[in-house]
């Protein structure tokens, strides 16, 4: 009984063991079991070679590596069960040759591959005859298509899904869902051809009382023309979350009458409070330092009707270094002797805490403070996106559904020009580029922290978050490619590639949280305290075999079993009742029929 229903729910677990991975990789796609390696439609074999995989956990493993235009696949030849590696080439950030033709020592000659998903791979090859040259070239070419004038695999991918993920986000219907436009807010097409701002979406929501001409003047005073536009409106108190970039104040403390008036119009639009709250995501000193390069922040003199708060979130470089340190202590081996102080020294959780704390303040100000808020950092595409999207996740339960979360990512991150291409470096060989930063990963981490604190509030599970992160790098889907909507349009991404949401929505049950209980309009305020922030072990340490032991999640599994058991009992009860009732009606003429009885009960609710 209970156990019989278990397999059905097992699919919620992580694809943990290497063997299972092979069979579950089918997801959506189809590959012939008879083939040596899994292959997506449109995926072509390029080369293969005998290598020794230097597994950091089990030592050297003899195997054969297969390279396609999408993945690196390794299967061991001797081990039972077979050791399998299945790595999308998009995950690779750097390929290095280790050792030379003359280096001594066993397995000292080969390739060292650094990945974007917290692991490194090492392969040793035979020393004679430049054995690694061809594989190095093939790998470099297909892992870094951008640097070789090649297309991303997403453009070759011919997978078919039952759902079309590109239909998930339609800005107009999302704003309509929020009750927009209304008498105070209007939709403008001023950016239809990206003439006002090339990193913004074409459709924007702005105050009704600001003309398109006003917007153009404001754009001149905002870094990269990213003017304040509406992200979210509170359904009851009409307070709004606005996002933008820093004002171009500069050393001389320039002012701009149009910008000042525009912010005042925003403030007045909700008509409830005397001040507009501005959250500058940066530390105070950074904001000041930005004046030297022409940026800055809203001064009290120029904006007497606004209150400004700094949220102390550091810049992309600090975050990149922090994640690098985190990787050092968790891969390949977990720093055991001083675990806590090592973790502390990465500052990773501290950054997570600051981002969450900032988002809580934004959400709280809008919800209980009934004040409209304006959020910006420097350019308004990194920290700003983190803050607005997290605050929206806290305030609007729609974004906590699978579809709503897709909309949130699509809207606040993808359409508003978070520079995915620069931050992730899709297909780019310049691994040391200063533009790389794990900003989106941090956001997903914050979402995970929230889901830990509110296990019933999210329709999706941890698996969805991990899948999103996997395909953030994989380049199998067009979803995260390129820096802005305008480039995506130029590259015809929606026509020529598939959306990640197609994969997810075609297999929703896999990503559904069994504990989810639908509630409307409940604000969630997570506790951003050190006592409750945890390292996301199932993501950051997932390559460590010791972590795999924890899967599948016994709590979820048990819950599903209990639910199944309950359903079974309910069904049997119903059957019994029907028999029971027919017995009664047989024995007495005045009895009610079962169906009548049920409807009575239902109206009671």
């Amino acid at each position, binding site marked *: 009984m209970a156990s019989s229903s278990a397999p059905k729910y097992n699919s919620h677990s992580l694809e943990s063991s290497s063997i299972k991975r092979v069979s579950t990789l089918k997801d959506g796609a189809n590959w012939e079991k008879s083939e040596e390696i899994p292959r997506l439609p449109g995926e072509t074999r390029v080369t293969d070679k005998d290598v020794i995989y230097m597994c950091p956990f089990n030592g050297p493993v003899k195997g054969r590596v297969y390279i396609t235009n999408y993945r690196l696949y390794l299967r061991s030849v001797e081990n039972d069960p077979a050791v399998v590696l299945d790595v999308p080439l998009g995950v690779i950030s750097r390929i290095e040759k280790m050792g030379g033709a003359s280096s001594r020592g066993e397995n000292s000659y080969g390739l060292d591959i650094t990945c974007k998903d917290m692991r490194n791979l090492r392969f040793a090859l035979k020393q004679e005859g430049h054995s690694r040259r061809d594989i190095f070239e093939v790998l470099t070419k297909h892992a870094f298509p951008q640097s070789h004038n090649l297309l991303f695999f997403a453009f070759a991918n011919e997978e078919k899904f039952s759902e079309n993920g590109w239909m998930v986000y339609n800005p107009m219907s999302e704003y309509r869902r929020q009750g927009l436009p209304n008498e105070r807010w209007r939709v403008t097409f001023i950016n239809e051809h990206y003439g006002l701002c090339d990193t913004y979406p074409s459709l924007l929501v702005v105050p009704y009382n600001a003309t398109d001409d006003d917007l153009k003047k404001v754009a001149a005073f905002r870094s990269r023309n990213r003017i304040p536009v509406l992200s979210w409106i509170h359904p009851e108190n009409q307070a709004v979350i606005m996002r933008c970039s820093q004002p171009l104040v500069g050393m001389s403390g320039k002012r701009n009458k149009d910008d000042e008036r525009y912010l005042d119009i925003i403030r007045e639009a909700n008509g409830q409070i005397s001040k507009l709250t501005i959250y500058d995501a940066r530390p105070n000193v950074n904001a000041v330092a930005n004046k030297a390069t022409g940026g800055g922040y809203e001064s009290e003199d120029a904006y007497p009707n606004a209150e400004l708060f700094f949220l102390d979130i550091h810049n992309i470089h600090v975050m990149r270094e922090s994640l690098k340190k985190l990787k050092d202590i968790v891969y390949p081996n977990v720093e055991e002797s001083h675990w*806590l102080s090592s973790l502390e020294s990465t500052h990773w959780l501290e950054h997570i805490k600051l981002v969450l704390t900032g988002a809580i303040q934004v959400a709280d100000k809008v919800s209980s*403070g009934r004040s409209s808020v304006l959020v910006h950092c420097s350019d308004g595409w990194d920290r700003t996106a983190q803050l607005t999207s997290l605050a929206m996740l806290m305030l609007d339960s729609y974004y906590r559904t699978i579809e709503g979360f897709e909309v949130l990512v699509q809207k606040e991150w993808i359409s508003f020009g978070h520079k995915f291409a620069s931050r992730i470096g899709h297909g780019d060989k310049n691994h040391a580029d200063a533009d790389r930063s794990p900003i989106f990963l941090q956001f997903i981490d914050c979402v995970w922290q929230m889901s830990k604190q509110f296990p019933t509030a999210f329709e999706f599970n941890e698996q969805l978050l991990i899948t999103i992160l996997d395909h953030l790098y994989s380049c199998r889907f067009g979803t995260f490619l390129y820096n802005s909507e305008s480039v995506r349009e130029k590259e015809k991404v929606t026509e020529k590639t598939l959306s990640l949401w197609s994969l997810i929505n075609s297999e929703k049950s896999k990503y559904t949280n069994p*504990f989810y209980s639908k509630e409307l309009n409940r604000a969630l*305020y*997570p506790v951003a305290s050190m006592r409750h922030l945890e390292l996301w072990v199932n993501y950051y340490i997932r390559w460590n075999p010791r972590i795999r032991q924890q899967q599948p999640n016994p709590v979820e599994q048990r819950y599903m079993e209990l639910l199944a058991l309950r359903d079974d009992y309910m069904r049997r009860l119903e059957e019994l009742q029907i*028999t*029971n009732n027919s017995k009664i009606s047989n024995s007495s003429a005045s009895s009610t029929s079962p169906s009548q009885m049920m409807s009575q009960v239902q109206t009671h609710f």
Partner: protein
Amino acid sequence: MEHIRMPKVENVRLLDRLSSRKAAVGTLYLTATHVIFVENGSETRKETWVLHSQISSIEKQATTATGCPLLIRCKNFQVIQLVIPQERDCHDVYISLIRLARPVKYEELYCFSFNPKLDKEEREKGWKLVDLNEEYNRMGIPNNYWQISDVNRDYGVCDSYPTEVYVPKSATAHIIVGSSKFRSRRRFPALSYYCKDNNASICRSSQPLSGFSARCLEDEQMLQAIRKANPGSDFIYVVDTRPKLNAMANRAAGKGYENEDNYSNIKFQFIGIENIHVMRNSLQKMLEVCEMKAPSMSDFLWGLENSGWLKHIKAIMDAGIFIAKVLIEKDWVSFGHKFNHRYGNLDGDPKEISPVIDQFIECVWQLMEQFPCAFEFNERFLIHIQHHIYSCQFGNFLCNSQKERRELKIQERTYSLWAHLWKNRADYLNPLYRPDHSQTRGTLHPQMAPCNFLYKFWSGMYNRFEKGLHPRQSVTDYLMAVKEETQQLEEELAVLGERLANLQKLQLNGNTVSKQQDRSKELVLSAFNNSLANTPQEYSNDLKSFPSRSPSQGDEEDSALILTQDNLKSSDPDLSANSDQESGVEDLSCRSPSGGGCLPSEDSGKDSDEAVCLAV
């Protein structure tokens, strides 16, 4: 009572440690058993009760303009900060509490006055719930190799051992007595655990009085006898739980450890668990971290690491894993040393107090976290036991030995905690527990030595009075709800089946009674009331069917459980946030961090930590 200099002080303020919320003003009462703070507010009159025996330290701080602060720290990790207007009153309360918190006689302890109104029979039944002999029977003892020995009747050999001890059959009284003379406090090797499947066992003893070279023939024979009691094994492991250095130092005092040369076929192993003094200091340091109002990331993680607490927990677990592993390898273990249980219920040397039992309880919790399906009980159960170890409300944890307990007639004069817990067992059940699960069957897998990062800070225990700090939703409660629902359905199924059978009978008799019909209709209705709730959430909206019953509901005499001002709404506040959490989920999380004036401030994000301290 003569120790109470000041039974009542008015206009006392109770500060909330973690929030900047306004302090509650009220009256402080000292009774023979409790410190009670009653808030003034006419409607609420919230009460905070603290048992004297829970008090671990009282600190009088420098007088300020507003009064004289008094800080009371409890053994269950509650911290209470009072401000008393008059310095003189404060001093009197201080002196009284110092005396009250350190009773000199067992008879002053609360369990001797605690009366749950059970009759004699029930009381006896309570004490019989846990029967050690039965436990040995469960393990298959006595058998061909092990027997019960009466050598310690009247505590003639060792006064800190029970009268009935299990020893190898081949160990004669002569050997046992001889061995006991060679062991510290005469605690000779005796059986703790026996594994039926492979004859392996765990024995325990104190350190040998070996000094630098002393030997004892009987002790050597004793260990030999233990080895022979497992015919399949050639040697036994002797595990000394101390760091080697400590054991060596003990030699100077005529004590020490077993010399492998003198004992045939032993394998000696040190496991570096630090002594009670180190543990006491470590806990102290960790609690300091817990008490921090808004720890920064580095305060918290560095503080936690520097306290070494989790390191000690891991050391103990590693020892346990080692021993368990050895058991599986069909070998023998004889404990070098016992774990002392030190609670400090009576006034005595503060250096003898140590949180060994807290550590044991935490080890169990860490295991539960790693094997969520393997334990029949839940976190609440552990927290409740921890509370009662110090509450002195029940006689179980009193005294240092069975001998003392018998002399004091504990079983006749006090009640057993196990009976109390048993009565409310539904609240302590782990909904994930499944006797058939692989995790449950037999041994937990010790070969997977858990890594450091799997050891977590147990906020549910050490910060359990700071309710605002806790996660707002508990998966366990959801599981409980569905489990309970499933059980109810099962019962209804049985009832309906029975009805059906009866109806069939009635029909055969051609005899229908309309009354019965009505009753069956009711039944159908009640069944559907439940079945319509498809999610736990729906369930929780229907409070009647949700298992929100707290352990001591309808159990007023249990008021000795500490009550904090925040949680009088639940009848058993001790259960951390869990018991009343579910019904409160909605409003709890809807509270805004920055208060906004009209909101109830307790539990709000602002109180709970630094999360929102910046706002306005």
